Protein backbone atom coordinates (compact mmCIF):
# COMPACT_ATOMS: atom_id res chain seq x y z
CA UNK A 1 0.00 0.00 0.00
CA UNK A 2 2.87 2.37 0.89
CA UNK A 3 4.47 2.45 -2.55
CA UNK A 4 1.13 2.73 -4.34
CA UNK A 5 0.03 5.69 -2.23
CA UNK A 6 3.42 7.34 -2.76
CA UNK A 7 3.32 7.03 -6.55
CA UNK A 8 -0.35 8.01 -6.78
CA UNK A 9 0.11 11.10 -4.62
CA UNK A 10 3.22 12.17 -6.58
CA UNK A 11 1.39 11.94 -9.90
CA UNK A 12 -1.85 13.63 -8.83
CA UNK A 13 -0.06 16.42 -6.98
CA UNK A 14 2.01 17.23 -10.08
CA UNK A 15 -1.14 17.70 -12.18
CA UNK A 16 -2.80 19.65 -9.35
CA UNK A 17 0.08 22.08 -8.90
CA UNK A 18 0.39 22.51 -12.69
CA UNK A 19 -3.33 23.29 -12.96
CA UNK A 20 -3.03 25.72 -10.04
CA UNK A 21 -0.11 27.61 -11.60
CA UNK A 22 -1.84 27.65 -15.01
CA UNK A 23 -5.09 28.95 -13.55
CA UNK A 24 -3.20 31.61 -11.59
CA UNK A 25 -1.26 32.78 -14.64
CA UNK A 26 -4.46 32.83 -16.73
CA UNK A 27 -6.14 34.93 -14.08
CA UNK A 28 -3.18 37.29 -13.94
CA UNK A 29 -2.47 37.60 -17.67
CA UNK A 30 -6.05 37.26 -18.91
CA UNK A 31 -5.25 34.41 -21.33
CA UNK A 32 -8.04 32.02 -20.24
CA UNK A 33 -7.95 29.04 -20.85
CA UNK A 34 -4.75 28.40 -22.80
CA UNK A 35 -2.16 28.48 -20.01
CA UNK A 36 -4.36 26.26 -17.85
CA UNK A 37 -4.36 23.58 -20.58
CA UNK A 38 -0.63 23.96 -21.15
CA UNK A 39 0.26 23.76 -17.46
CA UNK A 40 -1.94 20.71 -16.84
CA UNK A 41 0.16 18.89 -19.46
CA UNK A 42 3.39 20.22 -17.96
CA UNK A 43 2.10 19.24 -14.52
CA UNK A 44 1.48 15.70 -15.71
CA UNK A 45 5.07 15.54 -16.99
CA UNK A 46 6.32 16.96 -13.67
CA UNK A 47 4.26 14.32 -11.83
CA UNK A 48 5.85 11.57 -13.91
CA UNK A 49 9.26 13.10 -13.19
CA UNK A 50 8.48 12.98 -9.45
CA UNK A 51 7.46 9.33 -9.73
CA UNK A 52 10.68 8.46 -11.59
CA UNK A 53 12.74 10.32 -9.00
CA UNK A 54 11.11 8.61 -6.00
CA UNK A 55 11.46 5.25 -7.76
CA UNK A 56 15.15 5.88 -8.44
CA UNK A 57 15.66 6.94 -4.86
CA UNK A 58 14.04 3.90 -3.29
CA UNK A 59 15.86 1.66 -5.79
CA UNK A 60 19.18 3.26 -4.85
CA UNK A 61 18.57 3.01 -1.10
CA UNK A 62 17.41 -0.62 -1.30
CA UNK A 63 20.52 -1.51 -3.30
CA UNK A 64 22.90 0.11 -0.78
CA UNK A 65 21.06 -1.75 2.00
CA UNK A 66 21.79 -5.01 0.23
CA UNK A 67 25.49 -4.33 -0.13
CA UNK A 68 25.75 -3.29 3.52
CA UNK A 69 24.58 -6.62 4.80
Amino acid at each position, binding site marked *: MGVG*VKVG*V*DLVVGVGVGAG*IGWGLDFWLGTKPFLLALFIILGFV*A*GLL*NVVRTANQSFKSSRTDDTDQ
Partner: protein
Amino acid sequence: MASPLEQFTIEPILDLKIGETDISFTNSSLWMAITALVLIVFVVVGTQRRALVPGRWQSAVEYFYQVVADMVRDNVGSQGRPYFPFIFSLFMFILFGNLLGLIPTAFTFTSHLAVTFAMAAFIFVGVTIIGLITHGLKFFSLFFPHGAPIVSAPVLIPIEIISYFSRPISLSVRLFANMTVGHVLLKVIGGGVVALGGFFVVPGLLPFVFLVAITMLEVMIAVIQAYVFAILTCVYLNDALHLH
Protein backbone atom coordinates in the same frame (compact mmCIF):
# COMPACT_ATOMS: atom_id res chain seq x y z
CA MET B 1 -23.23 3.31 14.77
CA ALA B 2 -20.91 6.32 14.82
CA SER B 3 -19.39 7.41 11.54
CA PRO B 4 -15.78 6.25 11.04
CA LEU B 5 -14.87 9.87 10.33
CA GLU B 6 -16.16 11.08 13.68
CA GLN B 7 -12.79 10.41 15.33
CA PHE B 8 -11.25 13.27 13.32
CA THR B 9 -13.57 15.99 14.66
CA ILE B 10 -11.78 18.93 16.21
CA GLU B 11 -13.41 19.95 19.48
CA PRO B 12 -12.41 23.07 21.34
CA ILE B 13 -11.48 22.43 24.95
CA LEU B 14 -10.72 26.02 25.89
CA ASP B 15 -12.29 28.79 23.81
CA LEU B 16 -9.79 31.51 22.98
CA LYS B 17 -10.08 34.39 20.55
CA ILE B 18 -7.72 37.13 19.43
CA GLY B 19 -9.81 39.66 17.50
CA GLU B 20 -11.54 37.64 14.78
CA THR B 21 -9.05 34.76 14.85
CA ASP B 22 -10.10 31.59 16.62
CA ILE B 23 -7.10 30.20 18.52
CA SER B 24 -9.02 27.81 20.79
CA PHE B 25 -7.10 25.09 22.59
CA THR B 26 -8.56 21.98 20.90
CA ASN B 27 -8.22 18.22 21.33
CA SER B 28 -5.66 18.41 18.51
CA SER B 29 -3.56 20.94 20.44
CA LEU B 30 -3.96 18.86 23.59
CA TRP B 31 -2.49 15.79 21.87
CA MET B 32 0.33 17.83 20.37
CA ALA B 33 1.15 19.06 23.86
CA ILE B 34 0.97 15.50 25.24
CA THR B 35 3.24 14.28 22.41
CA ALA B 36 5.78 17.01 23.10
CA LEU B 37 5.67 16.25 26.82
CA VAL B 38 6.10 12.48 26.35
CA LEU B 39 8.95 13.17 23.94
CA ILE B 40 10.73 15.52 26.37
CA VAL B 41 10.35 13.05 29.24
CA PHE B 42 11.57 10.18 27.02
CA VAL B 43 14.71 11.98 25.86
CA VAL B 44 15.56 13.96 29.03
CA VAL B 45 15.12 11.05 31.45
CA GLY B 46 16.88 8.71 29.02
CA THR B 47 19.96 10.91 28.84
CA GLN B 48 20.03 11.76 32.55
CA ARG B 49 22.62 9.25 33.71
CA ARG B 50 24.78 9.17 30.55
CA ALA B 51 26.30 5.82 31.52
CA LEU B 52 29.14 4.45 29.41
CA VAL B 53 27.27 1.15 29.27
CA PRO B 54 23.70 2.36 28.59
CA GLY B 55 20.69 0.95 30.36
CA ARG B 56 17.51 0.00 28.53
CA TRP B 57 16.01 3.47 28.45
CA GLN B 58 19.27 5.16 27.45
CA SER B 59 19.78 2.54 24.70
CA ALA B 60 16.35 3.35 23.29
CA VAL B 61 17.12 7.09 23.11
CA GLU B 62 20.57 6.39 21.64
CA TYR B 63 19.00 4.13 19.04
CA PHE B 64 16.72 6.92 17.79
CA TYR B 65 19.66 9.32 17.82
CA GLN B 66 21.69 6.86 15.75
CA VAL B 67 18.88 6.32 13.21
CA VAL B 68 18.46 10.06 12.59
CA ALA B 69 22.22 10.74 12.64
CA ASP B 70 22.76 8.03 9.99
CA MET B 71 19.88 9.38 7.93
CA VAL B 72 21.28 12.93 7.96
CA ARG B 73 24.83 11.74 7.21
CA ASP B 74 23.79 9.45 4.35
CA ASN B 75 21.42 11.91 2.68
CA VAL B 76 22.93 15.33 3.35
CA GLY B 77 26.55 14.67 4.32
CA SER B 78 28.64 16.57 6.85
CA GLN B 79 27.09 19.90 5.79
CA GLY B 80 23.78 18.68 7.19
CA ARG B 81 25.09 18.55 10.77
CA PRO B 82 23.72 21.96 11.84
CA TYR B 83 20.23 20.79 10.84
CA PHE B 84 20.37 17.55 12.82
CA PRO B 85 18.47 18.92 15.86
CA PHE B 86 15.62 20.07 13.62
CA ILE B 87 15.35 16.76 11.74
CA PHE B 88 15.56 14.81 15.01
CA SER B 89 12.76 16.87 16.61
CA LEU B 90 10.66 16.60 13.46
CA PHE B 91 11.07 12.82 13.19
CA MET B 92 10.41 12.20 16.88
CA PHE B 93 7.39 14.53 16.98
CA ILE B 94 5.73 12.84 13.99
CA LEU B 95 6.67 9.36 15.19
CA PHE B 96 5.33 9.90 18.70
CA GLY B 97 2.26 11.67 17.34
CA ASN B 98 1.49 8.73 15.04
CA LEU B 99 2.10 6.12 17.73
CA LEU B 100 0.22 7.91 20.53
CA GLY B 101 -2.63 8.42 18.07
CA LEU B 102 -3.02 4.64 17.84
CA ILE B 103 -4.02 4.43 21.52
CA PRO B 104 -7.81 4.05 21.67
CA THR B 105 -9.63 7.35 22.41
CA ALA B 106 -6.48 9.30 21.53
CA PHE B 107 -6.57 11.96 18.83
CA THR B 108 -4.18 11.62 15.88
CA PHE B 109 -3.17 15.15 14.94
CA THR B 110 -1.11 13.90 11.95
CA SER B 111 -4.41 12.84 10.33
CA HIS B 112 -5.16 16.51 9.67
CA LEU B 113 -3.90 18.13 6.49
CA ALA B 114 -3.69 21.50 8.29
CA VAL B 115 -1.06 20.07 10.67
CA THR B 116 1.00 18.14 8.11
CA PHE B 117 0.85 20.95 5.55
CA ALA B 118 1.97 23.50 8.14
CA MET B 119 5.03 21.34 8.81
CA ALA B 120 5.70 20.70 5.10
CA ALA B 121 5.26 24.37 4.17
CA PHE B 122 7.65 25.41 6.96
CA ILE B 123 10.23 22.93 5.64
CA PHE B 124 9.70 24.07 2.04
CA VAL B 125 10.16 27.77 2.85
CA GLY B 126 13.06 27.03 5.20
CA VAL B 127 14.90 24.85 2.70
CA THR B 128 14.42 27.44 -0.07
CA ILE B 129 15.83 30.18 2.19
CA ILE B 130 18.79 27.96 3.16
CA GLY B 131 19.45 27.33 -0.54
CA LEU B 132 19.28 31.03 -1.39
CA ILE B 133 21.62 31.94 1.48
CA THR B 134 24.20 29.25 0.59
CA HIS B 135 24.23 29.73 -3.18
CA GLY B 136 22.74 33.17 -3.84
CA LEU B 137 21.27 33.45 -7.32
CA LYS B 138 23.08 30.26 -8.41
CA PHE B 139 20.36 28.46 -6.44
CA PHE B 140 18.02 28.90 -9.41
CA SER B 141 20.20 26.56 -11.50
CA LEU B 142 18.30 23.87 -9.53
CA PHE B 143 15.45 24.46 -11.97
CA PHE B 144 17.54 23.50 -14.99
CA PRO B 145 18.86 19.92 -15.20
CA HIS B 146 22.62 19.76 -15.51
CA GLY B 147 23.86 19.08 -19.06
CA ALA B 148 20.52 19.51 -20.86
CA PRO B 149 20.64 21.47 -24.14
CA ILE B 150 19.81 25.15 -23.63
CA VAL B 151 17.07 25.00 -26.32
CA SER B 152 14.98 22.78 -24.04
CA ALA B 153 14.93 25.42 -21.28
CA PRO B 154 11.42 26.82 -22.02
CA VAL B 155 9.94 23.33 -21.52
CA LEU B 156 12.18 22.01 -18.77
CA ILE B 157 12.12 25.04 -16.47
CA PRO B 158 8.29 25.09 -15.99
CA ILE B 159 8.34 21.33 -15.40
CA GLU B 160 11.08 21.65 -12.79
CA ILE B 161 9.26 24.55 -11.13
CA ILE B 162 6.01 22.54 -10.91
CA SER B 163 7.97 19.58 -9.57
CA TYR B 164 9.57 21.85 -6.95
CA PHE B 165 6.24 23.33 -5.84
CA SER B 166 4.59 19.92 -5.63
CA ARG B 167 7.08 18.87 -2.93
CA PRO B 168 5.36 20.33 0.14
CA ILE B 169 1.97 19.12 -1.11
CA SER B 170 2.99 15.53 -1.76
CA LEU B 171 4.99 15.50 1.49
CA SER B 172 1.99 16.58 3.57
CA VAL B 173 -0.70 14.65 1.67
CA ARG B 174 1.28 11.41 1.98
CA LEU B 175 1.43 11.53 5.78
CA PHE B 176 -2.13 12.80 6.16
CA ALA B 177 -3.61 10.23 3.73
CA ASN B 178 -1.80 7.28 5.32
CA MET B 179 -2.89 8.20 8.83
CA THR B 180 -6.49 8.98 7.87
CA VAL B 181 -6.94 5.80 5.83
CA GLY B 182 -5.40 3.68 8.58
CA HIS B 183 -7.65 5.06 11.28
CA VAL B 184 -10.80 4.78 9.14
CA LEU B 185 -9.88 1.16 8.42
CA LEU B 186 -9.39 0.40 12.13
CA LYS B 187 -12.72 2.00 12.97
CA VAL B 188 -14.62 0.15 10.23
CA ILE B 189 -13.22 -3.26 11.17
CA GLY B 190 -13.69 -2.46 14.87
CA GLY B 191 -17.33 -1.67 14.06
CA GLY B 192 -17.53 -5.08 12.36
CA VAL B 193 -16.37 -6.80 15.55
CA VAL B 194 -19.06 -5.06 17.60
CA ALA B 195 -21.77 -5.68 15.00
CA LEU B 196 -20.98 -9.42 14.97
CA GLY B 197 -21.37 -9.69 18.72
CA GLY B 198 -17.93 -8.93 20.16
CA PHE B 199 -14.69 -10.87 20.05
CA PHE B 200 -15.77 -13.70 22.39
CA VAL B 201 -18.27 -15.24 19.94
CA VAL B 202 -17.35 -17.04 16.71
CA PRO B 203 -18.54 -14.59 13.99
CA GLY B 204 -17.02 -11.60 15.81
CA LEU B 205 -13.74 -13.37 16.38
CA LEU B 206 -12.83 -13.37 12.68
CA PRO B 207 -12.80 -9.57 12.19
CA PHE B 208 -11.10 -9.32 15.59
CA VAL B 209 -8.15 -11.41 14.37
CA PHE B 210 -8.01 -9.20 11.30
CA LEU B 211 -8.18 -6.10 13.51
CA VAL B 212 -5.16 -7.28 15.49
CA ALA B 213 -3.22 -7.76 12.24
CA ILE B 214 -4.28 -4.32 10.92
CA THR B 215 -3.26 -2.71 14.22
CA MET B 216 0.22 -4.18 13.83
CA LEU B 217 0.31 -2.93 10.24
CA GLU B 218 -0.71 0.53 11.46
CA VAL B 219 2.14 0.60 13.98
CA MET B 220 4.50 -0.20 11.11
CA ILE B 221 2.95 2.51 8.90
CA ALA B 222 3.20 5.04 11.75
CA VAL B 223 6.96 4.41 11.95
CA ILE B 224 7.50 4.27 8.18
CA GLN B 225 5.61 7.49 7.49
CA ALA B 226 7.54 9.40 10.16
CA TYR B 227 10.75 8.04 8.63
CA VAL B 228 9.68 8.95 5.09
CA PHE B 229 8.77 12.49 6.16
CA ALA B 230 12.16 12.97 7.80
CA ILE B 231 14.13 11.36 4.97
CA LEU B 232 12.42 13.51 2.33
CA THR B 233 13.22 16.59 4.39
CA CYS B 234 16.86 15.44 4.27
CA VAL B 235 16.67 14.94 0.49
CA TYR B 236 15.23 18.43 -0.05
CA LEU B 237 17.86 19.90 2.24
CA ASN B 238 20.55 18.07 0.29
CA ASP B 239 19.23 19.51 -2.99
CA ALA B 240 19.30 23.02 -1.52
CA LEU B 241 22.81 22.64 -0.09
CA HIS B 242 24.48 20.83 -3.01
CA LEU B 243 22.33 21.70 -6.10
CA HIS B 244 22.07 18.35 -7.97
